[in-house]
């Protein structure tokens, strides 16, 4: 027997697995960020402004809550929807932050990060060919997530002249009978744009008029500056009924590795998302959920401290970049600035690669966030002040050297 199976094995030829990969998966290009990441990996002494997460370690009281949960043996599955106490905390938090009331037992679902919640929402909503409208430049996963759910992504450009806000008339232009949902993400990664209530009004009207579902990714809602209040589209009259509000703990509480996100939506939508979540994921990590309770209930002070710190670093970076000659609007939210680099004569990929090779500063080419991001780079200012200053000094040298060429 043994020798026969060995012989059988020996007759196998190496097979080309890629032909077995589903067409719609194979056709999705690799993330531009990932290519870039692999170049950075081979270098030392790099100051990275290419990160998409806070530089803080999770506040100790949150980490301690996770440890305590493990000590108490909270290591099993939780309800598919998530710990009831956490769902209550989420409902209370969203009421306070966004001004919308959700029922914790039927309208809240805890997910493994917002990414999962978005995926669930798309899978729950889309029939093949349904169109999802989203604004660009925006988070790298929107376009592929829609494709993976067999939907058709339809992008709307935003531009620096409107502070990268998405305009209702631009959305209206791409609406077709197949349009099913509008994906909004404000404050926006990578542009730092926000929408105020007065910007949201016409968009909400448009959604009601054309019967669009709104998927609103508000993961950066705590990181808004200059005393601005975050405005949620779900809070507008008649919008809670057609909005899936997505949020999580990663950015607000520096909890990226805990993987806790959540969706708030009308009960039938949560029920549909729960079906997928239950079979694909089961539940979010138990101790992470315990940590999230501590974050949502008791960490507003930590959030304020981080926000103050980010705001000052933002001022510094915007001031420096404008001085250097890379025009940069002042982002009202997130921890990214999105300077324009066309004055250097380079496209965003070449700018980023040359900056990395010659000065060892990592930024992310704007084109990774959609075609309309070309001509810009994303710099994350969630990095200690000394490193931030070092990075700005290096960028200044780089731009000066290019000018002399």
């Amino acid at each position, binding site marked *: 027997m043994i020798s026969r199976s060995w012989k059988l094995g020996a007759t196998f030829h190496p097979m080309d697995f890629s032909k077995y990969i589903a067409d719609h998966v194979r056709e999705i290009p690799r*993330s531009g*960020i990932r290519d*870039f*990441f692999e170049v*950075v*990996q081979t270098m030392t002494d*790099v100051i*990275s402004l*290419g*990160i*998409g*997460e806070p*530089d803080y*370690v999770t506040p100790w009281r949150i980490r301690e809550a996770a440890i305590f949960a493990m000590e108490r043996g909270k290591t099993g599955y939780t309800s598919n929807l998530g710990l009831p106490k956490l769902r209550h905390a989420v409902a209370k938090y969203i009421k306070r932050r966004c001004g919308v009331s959700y029922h914790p037992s039927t309208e809240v679902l805890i997910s493994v990060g917002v990414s999962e919640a978005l995926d669930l929402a798309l899978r729950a909503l889309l029939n093949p060919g349904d169109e999802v409208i989203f604004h660009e430049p925006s*988070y*790298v*996963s929107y376009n592929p997530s829609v494709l993976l759910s067999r939907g058709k992504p339809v992008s709307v450009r935003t531009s620096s002249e409107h502070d990268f806000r998405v305009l209702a008339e631009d959305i209206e232009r791409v609406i077709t009978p197949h349009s099913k949902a509008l994906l909004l993400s404000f404050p926006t*990664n990578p542009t730092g744009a926000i929408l105020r209530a007065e910007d949201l009004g016409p968009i909400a009207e448009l959604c009601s008029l054309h019967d669009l579902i709104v998927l609103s990714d508000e993961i950066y809602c705590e990181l808004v500056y200059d005393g601005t209040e975050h405005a949620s589209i779900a809070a507008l009259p008649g919008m809670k009924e057609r909005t899936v509000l997505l949020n999580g703990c990663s950015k607000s509480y520096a909890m990226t590795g805990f993987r806790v996100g959540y969706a708030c939506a009308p009960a039938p939508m949560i029920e549909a998302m729960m079906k997928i979540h239950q079979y694909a994921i089961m539940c979010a990590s138990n101790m992470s959920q315990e940590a999230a309770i501590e974050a949502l209930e008791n960490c507003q002070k930590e959030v304020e401290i981080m926000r*103050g710190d980010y705001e*000052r*670093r933002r*001022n*510094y970076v915007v*001031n*420096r970049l404008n001085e250097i000659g890379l025009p940069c609007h002042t982002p009202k939210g997130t921890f990214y600035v999105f300077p324009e680099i066309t004055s250097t004569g380079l496209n965003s990929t070449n700018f980023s690669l040359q900056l990395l090779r010659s000065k060892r500063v*990592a930024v*992310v080419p704007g084109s990774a966030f959609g075609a309309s991001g070309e001509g810009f780079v994303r710099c994350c200012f969630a990095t200690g*002040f000394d490193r931030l*200053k070092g990075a700005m000094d290096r960028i200044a040298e780089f731009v000066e050297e290019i000018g002399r060429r």
Partner: protein
Amino acid sequence: MLSCSGNLSESFWRETAWRVVASNAPKFTKHSFPFFLSRAIPKLKTQNSPSPMDPLLELLHQNANVQRADLAKLLNLSIEEIDRRIDQYEKERVILGYQAVLDSEKIDADAVTAFIEVSITPERGGGFDRLAERIARFDEVKSCWLMSGGYDLAILVEGGNLREIARFVSEKLSTVDGVISTATRFRLKTYKQNGMLLSQPANAERLSVSP
């Protein structure tokens, strides 16, 4: 140290002290409300409405080493404005000084820190101030606070070795007129100093590029 006491309302102090008085009433004559309070606490800026700390002070409190040009960029202010405010704070003694935070165990393994609880007799007219200031003037005394509770002054004393502290307590501190008793507690190990953990911060490995 920057003072944050301006944020505490007078009623807070009165209430807190009241409770202390209630639980300790028979012990010392100083605890006869409200004369003690009105003398001991008058320096609190209770008339100021609680306002959030100037971000400039916050930044300097975190790291006094940041250059003024950088402070200006961080706060969207001119360098002149930064200079003006810092001068003002120094003049008003809101900023008392600038110091490096040291790990003293690495510099001198024999160095000793003691936390001494001191009971003193308050004086008519002056309360605790005169005695407290007299004690605070000793170079060995690094910090000195008036406390609520079972004793009056808490002082932090640093010395080159045990003997130095012993000599300070027996020859200087306890012989001061008005000092009733002292209780000296020695530091065994430091874990956190002025908000800084002494253990190496766990350098969480961050990805250098992420979405």
